[in-house]
Protein backbone atom coordinates (compact mmCIF):
# COMPACT_ATOMS: atom_id res chain seq x y z
CA UNK A 1 0.00 0.00 0.00
CA UNK A 2 2.91 2.32 0.54
CA UNK A 3 5.29 1.03 -2.07
CA UNK A 4 6.93 3.34 -4.55
CA UNK A 5 4.80 2.03 -7.36
CA UNK A 6 1.51 2.82 -5.66
CA UNK A 7 2.62 6.28 -4.65
CA UNK A 8 4.01 7.14 -8.09
CA UNK A 9 0.81 5.95 -9.73
CA UNK A 10 -1.42 7.95 -7.40
CA UNK A 11 0.73 11.07 -7.84
CA UNK A 12 0.82 10.92 -11.63
CA UNK A 13 -2.92 10.30 -11.90
CA UNK A 14 -3.64 13.23 -9.62
CA UNK A 15 -1.25 15.49 -11.53
CA UNK A 16 -2.76 14.64 -14.90
CA UNK A 17 -6.29 15.19 -13.59
CA UNK A 18 -5.36 18.59 -12.18
CA UNK A 19 -3.68 19.54 -15.46
CA UNK A 20 -6.78 18.61 -17.45
CA UNK A 21 -8.97 20.58 -15.04
CA UNK A 22 -6.74 23.67 -15.35
CA UNK A 23 -6.80 23.48 -19.14
CA UNK A 24 -10.60 23.32 -19.18
CA UNK A 25 -10.85 26.26 -16.78
CA UNK A 26 -8.45 28.25 -18.94
CA UNK A 27 -10.59 27.49 -21.96
CA UNK A 28 -13.81 28.42 -20.14
CA UNK A 29 -12.36 31.75 -19.08
CA UNK A 30 -12.26 32.72 -22.75
CA UNK A 31 -16.05 32.75 -22.80
CA UNK A 32 -16.12 35.74 -20.47
CA UNK A 33 -14.33 37.89 -23.01
CA UNK A 34 -16.72 39.95 -25.14
CA UNK A 35 -14.80 40.97 -28.24
CA UNK A 36 -15.55 44.08 -30.31
CA UNK A 37 -13.60 43.71 -33.52
CA UNK A 38 -13.69 46.12 -36.43
CA UNK A 39 -12.47 45.64 -39.96
CA UNK A 40 -12.61 47.26 -43.35
CA UNK A 41 -11.46 46.03 -46.75
CA UNK A 42 -11.17 48.24 -49.81
CA UNK A 43 -10.32 47.20 -53.34
CA UNK A 44 -7.92 49.90 -54.48
CA UNK A 45 -7.31 48.59 -57.97
CA UNK A 46 -7.98 45.71 -60.33
CA UNK A 47 -4.47 45.17 -61.64
CA UNK A 48 -5.35 42.75 -64.38
CA UNK A 49 -8.09 40.32 -65.31
CA UNK A 50 -7.34 37.53 -67.77
CA UNK A 51 -8.51 34.14 -68.93
CA UNK A 52 -5.77 31.56 -68.52
CA UNK A 53 -4.84 29.00 -71.20
CA UNK A 54 -6.65 26.30 -69.20
CA UNK A 55 -9.91 28.26 -69.42
CA UNK A 56 -10.04 29.60 -65.86
CA UNK A 57 -10.46 33.29 -65.10
CA UNK A 58 -7.83 34.94 -62.97
CA UNK A 59 -7.84 38.39 -61.44
CA UNK A 60 -5.19 40.34 -59.56
CA UNK A 61 -6.30 42.98 -57.03
CA UNK A 62 -4.70 45.51 -54.77
CA UNK A 63 -6.40 45.65 -51.38
CA UNK A 64 -6.31 47.91 -48.39
CA UNK A 65 -7.14 45.91 -45.28
CA UNK A 66 -7.53 47.69 -41.97
CA UNK A 67 -8.31 45.74 -38.87
CA UNK A 68 -8.65 46.15 -35.11
CA UNK A 69 -8.81 42.81 -33.35
CA UNK A 70 -7.18 43.81 -30.08
CA UNK A 71 -10.34 43.02 -28.08
CA UNK A 72 -10.08 39.36 -29.09
CA UNK A 73 -6.90 38.78 -27.09
CA UNK A 74 -7.08 37.20 -23.64
CA UNK A 75 -4.35 35.75 -21.44
CA UNK A 76 -5.14 32.40 -23.01
CA UNK A 77 -4.64 33.52 -26.62
CA UNK A 78 -1.64 32.22 -28.49
CA UNK A 79 -2.32 33.93 -31.81
CA UNK A 80 -5.12 35.09 -34.07
CA UNK A 81 -5.10 33.91 -37.67
CA UNK A 82 -6.84 36.39 -39.94
CA UNK A 83 -7.61 36.05 -43.63
CA UNK A 84 -9.62 37.77 -46.33
CA UNK A 85 -11.60 35.57 -48.70
CA UNK A 86 -13.49 36.48 -51.84
CA UNK A 87 -16.88 34.76 -51.76
CA UNK A 88 -19.17 34.49 -54.76
CA UNK A 89 -21.59 32.21 -56.54
CA UNK A 90 -21.43 30.77 -60.04
CA UNK A 91 -23.89 28.69 -62.07
CA UNK A 92 -21.83 25.58 -61.39
CA UNK A 93 -20.89 26.26 -57.75
CA UNK A 94 -23.25 27.30 -54.96
CA UNK A 95 -20.34 28.77 -53.03
CA UNK A 96 -16.78 29.68 -53.88
CA UNK A 97 -14.41 30.88 -51.20
CA UNK A 98 -10.96 31.93 -52.37
CA UNK A 99 -8.49 33.17 -49.78
CA UNK A 100 -6.70 36.26 -51.06
CA UNK A 101 -4.55 37.20 -48.10
CA UNK A 102 -3.80 35.90 -44.65
CA UNK A 103 -1.73 36.90 -41.70
CA UNK A 104 -0.90 35.85 -38.19
CA UNK A 105 -1.33 38.26 -35.30
CA UNK A 106 0.93 37.03 -32.52
CA UNK A 107 -0.05 39.48 -29.79
CA UNK A 108 -2.37 42.29 -28.81
CA UNK A 109 0.16 44.97 -29.77
CA UNK A 110 0.07 43.79 -33.40
CA UNK A 111 -3.73 43.47 -33.55
CA UNK A 112 -4.52 46.93 -34.86
CA UNK A 113 -3.04 47.55 -38.28
CA UNK A 114 -3.66 48.36 -41.90
CA UNK A 115 -1.96 46.84 -44.90
CA UNK A 116 -1.80 47.79 -48.55
CA UNK A 117 -1.09 44.69 -50.63
CA UNK A 118 -1.78 42.74 -53.80
CA UNK A 119 -3.47 39.41 -53.25
CA UNK A 120 -1.11 36.92 -51.65
CA UNK A 121 -2.85 33.95 -53.19
CA UNK A 122 -4.07 33.75 -56.75
CA UNK A 123 -7.71 34.48 -57.34
CA UNK A 124 -8.58 31.81 -59.91
CA UNK A 125 -12.09 30.64 -60.69
CA UNK A 126 -13.14 27.11 -61.60
CA UNK A 127 -14.14 28.15 -65.06
CA UNK A 128 -14.79 31.44 -66.73
CA UNK A 129 -17.51 33.08 -64.65
CA UNK A 130 -15.89 36.18 -63.24
CA UNK A 131 -16.77 38.84 -65.80
CA UNK A 132 -19.13 41.33 -64.21
CA UNK A 133 -19.29 39.20 -61.07
CA UNK A 134 -20.46 40.62 -57.75
CA UNK A 135 -18.55 39.26 -54.80
CA UNK A 136 -18.17 39.67 -51.04
CA UNK A 137 -14.89 40.12 -49.26
CA UNK A 138 -15.15 38.42 -45.91
CA UNK A 139 -12.60 38.96 -43.20
CA UNK A 140 -12.36 35.78 -41.10
CA UNK A 141 -10.44 35.37 -37.89
CA UNK A 142 -9.54 32.21 -35.98
CA UNK A 143 -8.47 32.54 -32.39
CA UNK A 144 -5.96 29.86 -31.42
CA UNK A 145 -5.69 29.50 -27.64
CA UNK A 146 -2.73 28.37 -25.61
CA UNK A 147 -5.01 25.60 -24.43
CA UNK A 148 -8.62 24.76 -25.12
CA UNK A 149 -11.27 25.38 -27.72
CA UNK A 150 -10.55 27.38 -30.86
CA UNK A 151 -13.24 29.68 -32.09
CA UNK A 152 -13.76 31.71 -35.22
CA UNK A 153 -15.94 34.46 -36.59
CA UNK A 154 -16.12 36.81 -39.55
CA UNK A 155 -17.21 40.17 -40.91
CA UNK A 156 -18.78 40.20 -44.37
CA UNK A 157 -18.19 43.21 -46.62
CA UNK A 158 -20.31 43.10 -49.72
CA UNK A 159 -20.76 45.21 -52.81
CA UNK A 160 -17.57 44.51 -54.74
CA UNK A 161 -17.76 44.10 -58.47
CA UNK A 162 -15.44 42.77 -61.17
CA UNK A 163 -15.15 44.42 -64.57
CA UNK A 164 -17.34 43.28 -67.45
CA UNK A 165 -14.37 42.81 -69.78
CA UNK A 166 -10.90 41.37 -69.44
CA UNK A 167 -8.11 43.88 -69.10
Amino acid at each position, binding site marked *: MHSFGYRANALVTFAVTILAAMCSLASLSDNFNVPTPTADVKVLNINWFQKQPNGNDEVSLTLNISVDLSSMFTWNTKQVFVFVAAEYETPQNALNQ*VSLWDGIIPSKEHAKFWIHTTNKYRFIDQGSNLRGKDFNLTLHWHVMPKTGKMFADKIVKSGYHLPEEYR
Partner: protein
Amino acid sequence: MGWIGGNLESIRSLQTKQALTQAVNLGLVVTSALILWRGLMCVTGTESPVVVVLSGSMEPGFQRGDILFLHMNQDPIRAGEIVVFNVDGKDIPIVHRVIEVHERQDTGEVDVLTKGDNNEEDDRLLYPYGQLWLQKHHITGRAIGT
Protein backbone atom coordinates in the same frame (compact mmCIF):
# COMPACT_ATOMS: atom_id res chain seq x y z
CA MET B 1 -0.24 -36.32 6.63
CA GLY B 2 -3.79 -35.45 5.99
CA TRP B 3 -3.46 -31.88 7.27
CA ILE B 4 -0.28 -31.22 5.17
CA GLY B 5 -2.14 -32.30 2.10
CA GLY B 6 -5.07 -30.18 3.21
CA ASN B 7 -2.84 -27.09 3.71
CA LEU B 8 -1.10 -27.54 0.39
CA GLU B 9 -4.49 -27.78 -1.25
CA SER B 10 -5.70 -24.55 0.37
CA ILE B 11 -2.43 -22.67 -0.43
CA ARG B 12 -2.54 -23.73 -4.09
CA SER B 13 -6.20 -22.80 -4.46
CA LEU B 14 -5.47 -19.43 -2.77
CA GLN B 15 -2.66 -18.70 -5.23
CA THR B 16 -4.77 -19.82 -8.15
CA LYS B 17 -7.61 -17.62 -6.97
CA GLN B 18 -5.28 -14.62 -6.63
CA ALA B 19 -3.77 -15.18 -10.03
CA LEU B 20 -7.18 -15.52 -11.61
CA THR B 21 -8.43 -12.39 -9.86
CA GLN B 22 -5.45 -10.42 -11.12
CA ALA B 23 -5.97 -11.70 -14.65
CA VAL B 24 -9.62 -10.73 -14.59
CA ASN B 25 -8.77 -7.29 -13.20
CA LEU B 26 -6.24 -6.75 -15.96
CA GLY B 27 -8.80 -7.80 -18.52
CA LEU B 28 -11.30 -5.35 -17.06
CA VAL B 29 -8.82 -2.46 -17.21
CA VAL B 30 -7.86 -3.16 -20.81
CA THR B 31 -11.47 -3.57 -21.88
CA SER B 32 -12.64 -0.37 -20.20
CA ALA B 33 -9.80 1.56 -21.85
CA LEU B 34 -10.89 0.14 -25.19
CA ILE B 35 -14.53 1.02 -24.51
CA LEU B 36 -13.51 4.57 -23.59
CA TRP B 37 -11.47 4.95 -26.78
CA ARG B 38 -14.19 3.56 -29.01
CA GLY B 39 -16.80 5.68 -27.25
CA LEU B 40 -14.69 8.76 -27.93
CA MET B 41 -14.43 7.77 -31.58
CA CYS B 42 -18.21 7.49 -31.71
CA VAL B 43 -18.83 10.84 -30.02
CA THR B 44 -16.38 12.82 -32.10
CA GLY B 45 -17.15 11.03 -35.36
CA THR B 46 -13.53 10.59 -36.36
CA GLU B 47 -11.19 7.67 -36.49
CA SER B 48 -8.58 9.39 -34.38
CA PRO B 49 -10.13 11.86 -31.95
CA VAL B 50 -6.75 13.00 -30.67
CA VAL B 51 -3.68 13.54 -32.83
CA VAL B 52 -0.18 14.79 -32.21
CA VAL B 53 1.25 17.48 -34.47
CA LEU B 54 4.15 16.00 -36.41
CA SER B 55 5.57 18.83 -38.49
CA GLY B 56 6.29 22.52 -38.13
CA SER B 57 4.04 23.52 -41.03
CA MET B 58 1.45 25.20 -38.80
CA GLU B 59 3.79 27.20 -36.59
CA PRO B 60 3.57 29.34 -34.59
CA GLY B 61 0.01 28.21 -33.94
CA PHE B 62 0.73 24.50 -33.52
CA GLN B 63 4.16 23.34 -32.52
CA ARG B 64 5.59 19.87 -33.06
CA GLY B 65 4.30 17.67 -30.25
CA ASP B 66 1.11 19.62 -29.58
CA ILE B 67 -2.03 17.57 -29.03
CA LEU B 68 -5.08 18.39 -31.14
CA PHE B 69 -8.68 17.40 -30.45
CA LEU B 70 -10.66 16.56 -33.55
CA HIS B 71 -14.31 16.41 -34.39
CA MET B 72 -16.16 15.53 -37.55
CA ASN B 73 -19.76 16.11 -38.53
CA GLN B 74 -21.79 16.72 -41.64
CA ASP B 75 -21.38 20.51 -41.54
CA PRO B 76 -20.00 21.78 -44.83
CA ILE B 77 -16.30 22.48 -45.01
CA ARG B 78 -15.55 26.18 -45.10
CA ALA B 79 -12.45 28.26 -45.66
CA GLY B 80 -10.33 28.85 -42.57
CA GLU B 81 -11.10 25.56 -40.88
CA ILE B 82 -8.18 23.43 -39.82
CA VAL B 83 -8.69 19.95 -41.18
CA VAL B 84 -6.92 16.63 -40.94
CA PHE B 85 -6.59 14.64 -44.12
CA ASN B 86 -4.77 11.66 -45.54
CA VAL B 87 -3.18 11.76 -48.95
CA ASP B 88 -4.16 8.70 -51.01
CA GLY B 89 -1.77 5.93 -50.29
CA LYS B 90 -0.05 7.52 -47.31
CA ASP B 91 -0.86 6.84 -43.68
CA ILE B 92 0.39 10.05 -42.15
CA PRO B 93 -2.43 12.47 -41.31
CA ILE B 94 -1.73 16.07 -42.30
CA VAL B 95 -3.15 18.97 -40.34
CA HIS B 96 -3.51 22.13 -42.46
CA ARG B 97 -5.91 24.99 -43.03
CA VAL B 98 -8.48 25.19 -45.83
CA ILE B 99 -7.83 28.19 -48.08
CA GLU B 100 -10.20 27.54 -50.98
CA VAL B 101 -13.64 25.96 -51.18
CA HIS B 102 -15.75 25.37 -54.28
CA GLU B 103 -19.12 23.78 -53.56
CA ARG B 104 -21.27 22.41 -56.38
CA GLN B 105 -24.82 23.70 -56.75
CA ASP B 106 -26.46 20.39 -57.47
CA THR B 107 -24.60 17.71 -55.54
CA GLY B 108 -23.13 19.73 -52.69
CA GLU B 109 -19.76 18.09 -53.39
CA VAL B 110 -16.81 20.29 -52.49
CA ASP B 111 -13.36 20.87 -53.93
CA VAL B 112 -11.00 21.98 -51.20
CA LEU B 113 -7.47 23.38 -51.29
CA THR B 114 -5.33 23.38 -48.15
CA LYS B 115 -2.11 25.04 -47.02
CA GLY B 116 0.01 24.95 -43.91
CA ASP B 117 0.18 28.35 -42.18
CA ASN B 118 3.95 28.22 -42.12
CA ASN B 119 4.37 26.98 -45.71
CA GLU B 120 5.03 29.25 -48.67
CA GLU B 121 3.05 27.15 -51.13
CA ASP B 122 -0.32 25.47 -50.99
CA ASP B 123 -0.60 21.71 -50.63
CA ARG B 124 -0.91 20.83 -54.33
CA LEU B 125 2.68 19.56 -54.06
CA LEU B 126 1.51 17.05 -51.46
CA TYR B 127 -1.51 15.81 -53.36
CA PRO B 128 -0.90 12.89 -55.73
CA TYR B 129 0.14 13.79 -59.25
CA GLY B 130 -2.78 15.14 -61.22
CA GLN B 131 -4.97 15.77 -58.19
CA LEU B 132 -5.77 19.46 -57.78
CA TRP B 133 -8.33 19.36 -54.98
CA LEU B 134 -9.30 17.41 -51.89
CA GLN B 135 -12.80 16.04 -51.57
CA LYS B 136 -14.84 15.50 -48.45
CA HIS B 137 -13.92 11.84 -48.25
CA HIS B 138 -10.23 12.68 -47.90
CA ILE B 139 -10.91 14.67 -44.75
CA THR B 140 -11.05 12.76 -41.49
CA GLY B 141 -11.65 15.54 -38.99
CA ARG B 142 -11.64 19.18 -38.01
CA ALA B 143 -9.41 20.51 -35.24
CA ILE B 144 -11.47 22.03 -32.45
CA GLY B 145 -8.94 22.60 -29.69
CA THR B 146 -5.47 22.05 -28.31
